[in-house]
C-alpha cells in the first residue's frame, strides 16, 4: 500500500512538474516601414495577437522608412540574417527572389484566405518562379488611387465623369481672388508620379508590355495620356508635393491621389470644409485606378517553428475582422473580398468616418488594376525611376511627351536586358 501511495505521489509530482514547465515561446520578427497611425495600428494588432498566442512573440521593428527597409532587407538577405517576415514592394520581392530567400507564402496560407483575395491583389503578389505564376507574397497595406473633393463647393453634379469633363468642369472653379490675372483658387490639383501616369495610361487603353516583353509606355496611349496631363497642368495647381495642404486651405477643389492619404486630407480640412471621395473619371478605355502599397513575405531562413508561428500571425492579420479593423483605422483597403461584404464593414461605411470609404471600395471592387506580372522584376525600381525622370522633363517642358517617353522606354528595356526592344 505504501509502495502504491509512493508511486502515486511520484506520478502526481511528475504531473505537476510537467504542467508547471514554462511554455516554449517562439519569437518571430516582422520588419516594417510604417509610422504614425499605421505604426500605432500594427502595434495594437500585434499586441492582441501576442496576448492571444502565448507560445509566439512577434517582435515588430520599424526600419525608419521604406527606402531604409529596402536597403537593410537586401543587406540582411545577402548576409543570411533576414527577419522572419517583412513588408515588401513587388520590385523588392523580385530582387529577393534572385537570392532564393522567400517561401511561397501563397501555398502556406489557408486556402480560404488565398481564394478570398480580389484579383488585382492576386496579380500584384504573383511572380514567375521556374516558369510558373506563383503567389509568393500576400497583400497587406493596400491602397488605390481615388478622387478627393471639397464637398462644400463641389456638388455631385459638378463631379467629372470623364477626362474631358475634368478639363471642362474643374476650370469653372478657378478663381483669381487678388486680380493679378492668374487663378489662385483651382478646380483641380495635379501631382504626377509614375503610378498617376500608369493610371492615365491604363485608362487610355495602354498596355505596359508587348508580346516580346518590351516596355511600351511610349506608344500612342502613353503619349496621349502625357499630353492630356500637360494640358491639365495648364489649368491646375501643379506641384510635386502632397496636395492635402492646399486642398485643406481651400485652394484646390479636386485631386487624385492614394486612398491612404484620406486621413491627411480630412485632417487638413477639419473645421474648414467637407471632404468627400469619388470614383476616378473615365478615360478612353476604362476608369480603373492603380493598386499601391506593400505586401508581406516570409523568409526561408526561419526555422519550421518560426514559419508556423509566422503563418499564424499573417493569417491573424488577414482575418476578416482584423483586415476590417486595419482599414477602419488607417484608410487602407480591406484585402479580403468577404470583408467588403461583412456586416461590420457595411455598418462602418454608414458612419461619418466610414462614408468616404464607400467610393474607395467601389473603385477597388469595380475598377482596380496593378502593374502586370512582367513588371515584377528586380529592374523595376530603375524602370520606375526612368518613368519618373520622363514625367519631370515633360511637366517642366524640357522634352516633348514622345521624346521623353521614348527615352524612358529605351533606358528601361536596356535595364531589363531586352536587347531586341532597343
Amino acid at each position, binding site marked *: 500500500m505504501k509502495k502504491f501511495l509512493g508511486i502515486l505521489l511520484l506520478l502526481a509530482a511528475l504531473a505537476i512538474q510537467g504542467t508547471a514547465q514554462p511554455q516554449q515561446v517562439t519569437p518571430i*520578427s516582422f520588419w516594417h516601414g*510604417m*509610422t*504614425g497611425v*499605421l*505604426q500605432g495600428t500594427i502595434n495594437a494588432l500585434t499586441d492582441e495577437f501576442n496576448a492571444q498566442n502565448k507560445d509566439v512573440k512577434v*517582435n515588430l*521593428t*520599424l*526600419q*525608419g*522608412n*521604406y527606402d*531604409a*527597409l529596402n*536597403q*537593410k532587407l*537586401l*543587406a*540582411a538577405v*545577402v*548576409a*543570411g*540574417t533576414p527577419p522572419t517576415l517583412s513588408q515588401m514592394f513587388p520590385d523588392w520581392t523580385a530582387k529577393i527572389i534572385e537570392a532564393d530567400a522567400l517561401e511561397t507564402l501563397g501555398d502556406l496560407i489557408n486556402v480560404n484566405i488565398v481564394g478570398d483575395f480580389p484579383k488585382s491583389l492576386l496579380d500584384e503578389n504573383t511572380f514567375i518562379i521556374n516558369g510558373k505564376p506563383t503567389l509568393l507574397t500576400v497583400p497587406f497595406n493596400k*491602397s488605390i488611387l481615388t478622387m478627393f473633393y471639397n464637398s462644400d463647393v463641389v456638388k455631385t453634379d459638378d463631379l467629372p465623369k470623364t477626362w474631358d469633363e475634368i478639363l471642362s468642369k474643374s476650370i469653372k472653379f478657378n478663381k483669381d481672388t487678388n486680380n493679378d490675372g492668374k487663378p489662385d483658387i483651382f478646380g483641380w490639383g495635379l501631382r504626377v508620379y509614375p503610378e498617376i501616369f500608369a493610371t492615365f495610361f491604363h485608362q487610355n487603353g495602354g498596355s505596359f508590355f508587348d508580346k516580346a516583353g518590351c516596355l511600351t509606355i511610349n506608344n500612342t496611349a502613353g503619349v496621349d495620356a502625357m499630353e492630356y496631363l500637360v494640358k491639365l497642368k495648364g489649368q491646375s495647381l501643379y*506641384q510635386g*508635393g*502632397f496636395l*492635402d*495642404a*492646399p486642398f*485643406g*486651405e481651400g*485652394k484646390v477643389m479636386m485631386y487624385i*491621389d*492614394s486612398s*491612404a*492619404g484620406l*486621413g*491627411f486630407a480630412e*485632417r*487638413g*480640412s*477639419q*473645421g*474648414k470644409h467637407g471632404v468627400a471621395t469619388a470614383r476616378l473619371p473615365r478615360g478612353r478605355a476604362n476608369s480603373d485606378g492603380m493598386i499601391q502599397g506593400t505586401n508581406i513575405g516570409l523568409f526561408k531562413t526561419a526555422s519550421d517553428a518560426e514559419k508556423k508561428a509566422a503563418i499564424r500571425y499573417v493569417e491573424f492579420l488577414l482575418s476578416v475582422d482584423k483586415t476590417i479593423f486595419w482599414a477602419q483605422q488607417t*484608410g487602407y483597403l480591406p484585402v479580403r473580398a468577404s470583408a467588403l461584404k461583412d456586416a461590420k464593414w457595411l455598418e462602418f461605411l454608414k458612419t461619418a468616418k466610414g462614408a468616404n470609404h464607400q467610393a474607395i471600395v467601389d473603385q477597388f471592387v469595380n475598377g482596380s488594376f496593378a502593374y502586370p506580372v512582367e513588371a515584377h522584376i528586380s529592374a523595376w525600381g530603375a524602370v520606375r525611376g526612368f518613368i519618373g525622370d520622363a514625367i519631370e522633363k515633360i511637366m517642366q517642358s524640357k522634352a516633348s511627351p514622345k521624346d521623353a517617353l521614348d527615352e524612358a522606354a529605351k533606358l528601361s528595356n536596356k535595364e531589363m536586358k531586352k536587347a531586341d526592344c532597343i
Partner: protein
Amino acid sequence: MNSTVTFERKLGWWRLRFGAGRAITYLVLSVVALLILLPFFWMVTTALRAPDEELIRFGPLLIPRHVHFENFVQAWETAPFGRYFFNSFFIAIVTTLAFLATSAMGGYAFARLRFPGQHILWLATLGTLMIPAEVLLIPNFITLAKWLHWSDTYYALIIPWTVSAFGIFLMRQVFLQQPKELWEAARLDGCGHLRFLWQILLPQVRPTFLTLGVLKFFWTWDMFLWVVLFTNADDMRTVTFGLYRFTSEVGTSYELWMAASLMSIAPIVLLFLLVRRQLIEGISRVGLR
C-alpha cells in the same frame, strides 16, 4: 571755404566706408546670407504653424497665423526622443574623440616617422578614399552583424567610424607644414614622439584639429542608414531616426517634423556657435595650403 573742405572730408570718409565696391560686397553677402537663412526661417515658422496651414507661402505669409508651441511637446512625445538624444550624444562624442586620436596618431606616423612599407601603406590608406560608401555597405553588414554579432550594440555604431583616411590625410598634411626644428628641439630636451605630438604639435595646429572634430561630430550626429542597418532595438536608435516618425508614403506632418528637426539641430548649432572662431580659422588655414 571751410564748408567745402568739411564736405570733401565727409565725402572721402563716405567713399572710404561705403564706396561702390564695398556696397556691392555687402549687398551680395546680404543676399547670400538671406538665401542661406531662408530655409531655417521656413523651418521655424513651419514648426510653429497649425497642421492645416499651407506650407508654401511667400513674404509675410510665411509667418504662421497662430503660434503653436505645443507642436514641440507633441513631437517630443511621438518617439522616445530622450533616449534618442542620449544615444546621439554618446555616439557622437565617443566617435569624435576616438577619431581625433586615430587621425592625429595616423597623420603623425605618416608625416614624421619612417618605417618599412610606409609608402605602400600610405597609398592603401589614400585608396580607401576612392571606394564609394555604397559598395561597402553589404560587406560591412556581413562583418559586423553576421560575424561579430554587433547588431544592437554601441560597438557597431562607434568603432567603424573611429578611423578614416580623410582624417589621417588631413592631419598628415598639416603636420608636414610644421617646422622640423620643433621636433629636433624637443628631442634634445628628451621628448618622445607621443609627448611631442600631444604637447607641442597638436597645440600648433589646434584650429585644424578642432575643425576636424567639429565636422566629425556633425557627420556622426547626422548618421541615419548606418543606425537603421545595425539596430533593431528602439533604445539603440538616434535622433535622426526619430525624425522619420513624422513622414510616410501618403503624407507628412510637416509642423511636427520641423519641430523635431529644430530640436535635433539645436546641439549642432550650439556647438557651431561655441567654436565658430576656431572653425573659421581652421578652414581658412586648410584652404591656404
